[in-house]
């Protein structure tokens, strides 16, 4: 699911330029990455038990 956010045109132009130079496939991908990085700093980690359970059965690891 996606939603729209309004940005100033000048800012969007700069974003498009930086995104292309950085190897992103679109300005949206760049914006998502930057925001995710910032949000991750504020989020709590999942419980260990949940993580371990989800990995169960992956052939390559015990």
């Amino acid at each position, binding site marked *: 699911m996606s939603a729209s956010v309004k940005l100033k045109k000048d800012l969007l132009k700069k974003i498009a330029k930086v995104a292309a130079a950085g190897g992103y496939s679109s300005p949206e991908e760049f914006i998502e990455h930057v925001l995710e990085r910032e949000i991750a700093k504020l989020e709590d980690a999942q419980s260990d038990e949940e993580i371990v359970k989800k*990995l169960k059965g992956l052939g390559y690891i015990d």
Partner: protein
Amino acid sequence: MIGPHFAYIGPGAGFAFFGSFLTLVAGLFMSLFSILAWPFRMARRALLNRKSFRKARVKKIIFLGLDGLDPRITERMLAEGKLPNLARLAEEGSYQRLRTTFPALSPVAWSTFATGVSPARHNIFDFLDRSLKSYQPRLSSARVGKPERVLRLGRLRIPLSRPALELRRKSQPFWAILGKLGISSTILRVPITFPPEKFEGKMLSAMATPDLKGTQGSFSQFTTRVEKASYENGSRYPLRRTADGFEGEIEGPEDTFVDGGRVLKIPFRLLRRGDVFELRIGDSACTLERGEYTAWQQLNFRTAIGVKVSGISRFLLTETDPECSVYMSPINIDPEHPALPISHPSYYAMYLAKLLGSFATVGMAEDTWALNEGVIDEDAFLGQAYSIFEEREAMFLDALESTRRGVVACVFDTSDRVQHMFFRHMASSDRHAAVIEKMYERMDALVAKARSYVDSGTALFVLSDHGFCSFRRGVNINSWLLENGYLYLRNGAKESGSFFEGVDWSRTRAYALGLSGFYLNIKDREARGVVQSGAEAQELRDEIAGKLAALRDEDGAAPIRQVYQTAALYRGPYLEAAPDFIVGYNEGYRCSWEGAVGKITTQVVTDNPKAWSGDHCVDPVLVPGVLFSNRKIDVNDPGIEDLAPTALNLFGVQPPAWMEGKALL
């Protein structure tokens, strides 16, 4: 239009439940709209098609992916005349070794195949990544979260939205780019496609798709043997004797409709019928014969509020007298009633199941752990692997049959799983010595079937993502880091439990997680980082890389061919998520089972005793893949990143600037 009840039961996730009335009304409305709009859609598509294919040099591209097909074995068998169809393809077109990614792992390499970029641009560096807060491992490619809106009624919890699903692979696959231009693709079981993305075409998700319990596939064993056995990746349950046979209970997912979510269970009975048993689950019954898998059995788990969640499993009677044991495969998401989206459009999985019968949906469908842990034997494993192969082949041929223009890409995992589990037999004289060769011959026969759909307007590529070699000894990088003063355990301990139990992060400068590499514990990056980024980190990187490369095994052999610093391998926006080092193991070695999950052992290099005896988690230079095509490819050193721009180029589409691969044709 069918409106499935997307529901999910797994650790920490909840259901997304839509009222059936609303679904019915929406379904009727959509059906009516769909019928009325049909002539306009057809006219638009015809116009778009004409425009889309104007510059195309082909009508159709077929990518047949044979995961892990090794060039050395392939070339030897080609020379011996054992792979006639691949030989013909090479003769008419071309054959070359295909450079793989760093590291040579399927999620990484197939993501590069799809996007035409290096891992630093698609964000998949391993099966696992780590939480920078807790240092705990996570699946690198997908996140399954809880529904955001939940209605609480006493102890009941009614989800009002779908669970949050996220594909962590970044950049754009070539089929999405082609789709925007009106060129449609059918993408079948290409790894790292869960959850499925919307695009112009059809897709069936693969690697990372969970089972109904939310794991990557955990089997069950029902047995009269009373002694306890704890399986690392499965569960053992009692089989109780009754007057006419046995009875037991199937444990499914947790009921997330209630606080504290009890495990949902379904009782079953085994009734003796002469030499065979009748397996009764609810109203359904089937015959259970020793050594023969049942067909997929539907398992309907009823939740606290009456909603049913459907999964599928296959059963195998492994012993009958004096003890009785039954193996049950992981409970796969039912493709006819998917509890999570596993295809695009959502009804594509249902269509395939209705047309061809039910099929395995979990990411790594072949149950390698059941063989590792001796719950099934080699023949049972092969029976399962080839049954999944046949399901996949039927889907692939259906897609080829119905595609006149566009792309069909399908990846077969049989080649990878069989080599993992039978590599040690290849050098033996036991009855499984020829299993791998026979598998190669079977893949060759599949190539013949694909070739029957090739005409002058079709480009066919048969490729693998990496090769294979033996896995005799495991290297625990965490143990080596402890021995060399880069990692510390609390209270001076010399060994630890999994997932860095007991690690003293305040003194730890480096740690290893996953199959390919290891990380520095960087200040302001990791939650309890101690190494200053910049010059201090670089000095430490150089020091560790030099020391680790000098590691020797008991017999003087070098387990490590080269230690790569990731920053020197590729450039891209996701580089910061990559391990600081990728370890290029020599043939015969891999990271140890314990080391991959952050468990510290007293020995650095140990034997690998498991049936899983072949691997590719070595220096990528040692395990390139293969690339066959019916077209002449005259390029030195083709890489797996070159296939995506090749597909675009063949359809007359200029590859975008962010793609790092170069078109081969």
